[in-house]
């Protein structure tokens, strides 16, 4: 039994730690998000409603790599038409 003590302790700690550090993401209403190009956290907010795009349209949307659009839950108005992304981020990927 002594041989298993450390292992059992490690398993218990791991389950305990994961239960307190992982927050499952809630379903976000995509139409409530503010859309930015990938990698940009300051820009004028995109007028494109990614949530209503079809899969086919998603294939042609801009952005290098595979990220297509990034939605943020809140923004700060910086004036001169630019906005700073705030809040949690939801990424929409190309299919």
């Amino acid at each position, binding site marked *: 039994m002594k*041989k*298993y003590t*450390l*292992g059992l*302790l*490690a*398993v218990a*700690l*791991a*389950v305990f*730690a*994961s*239960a307190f*550090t*992982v*927050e*499952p*993401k809630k379903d976000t209403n995509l139409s409530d998000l503010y859309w930015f190009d*990938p*990698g940009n956290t300051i820009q004028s907010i995109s007028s494109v409603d990614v949530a209503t795009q079809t899969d086919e349209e998603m294939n042609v949307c801009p*952005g*290098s*790599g*595979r*990220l297509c659009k990034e939605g943020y839950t809140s923004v700060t108005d910086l004036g001169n038409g630019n906005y700073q992304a705030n809040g949690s981020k939801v*990424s929409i*990927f190309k299919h």
Partner: protein
Amino acid sequence: MLLKKKYISSKLTIMAGYSKWDTLLQLIAAVFIFLFVYTAVSKFLDFKSFKLTLHASPLITNKNVWVAWAIPLAELIVAALLFIPRTRLLGLYGSFGLLALFTLYLGYMLLFTPNRPCVCGGVIKAMSWGQHLVFNCFLTLLSVMGIHIQKRIGKKAMATVIT
């Protein structure tokens, strides 16, 4: 009588050495058990997001569903192998294999991919890609150390049985 005393003292020395290395090995195994169970459970708890992130990875894309199942399951299997003393060496080889694979993946992503979605579990997500690479290299070396210690203990145990 003297011979018997000498035999007992040499056997005790072997046992003391064995115990020290065995404790260190148990600690290494516990570190890996913690790491693999923690990351596997974290992935399962946030499975939907994990699957989506894998889909965004240029090396995985459409294979994301089975990779999303395979990674945490492999981590749990390796943790179980490390938990049982008889299969610990196999578990250490498994740890080395998984960590080497993750490290290669990290290296590839750092070198060739501009948009890098993090597919790690739990608080490890908070690390930068560079930090993650260093962390993985350290753990890979730790698994190599574990393999050496396990082999050393195995040899000592054999020597004790033979004498």
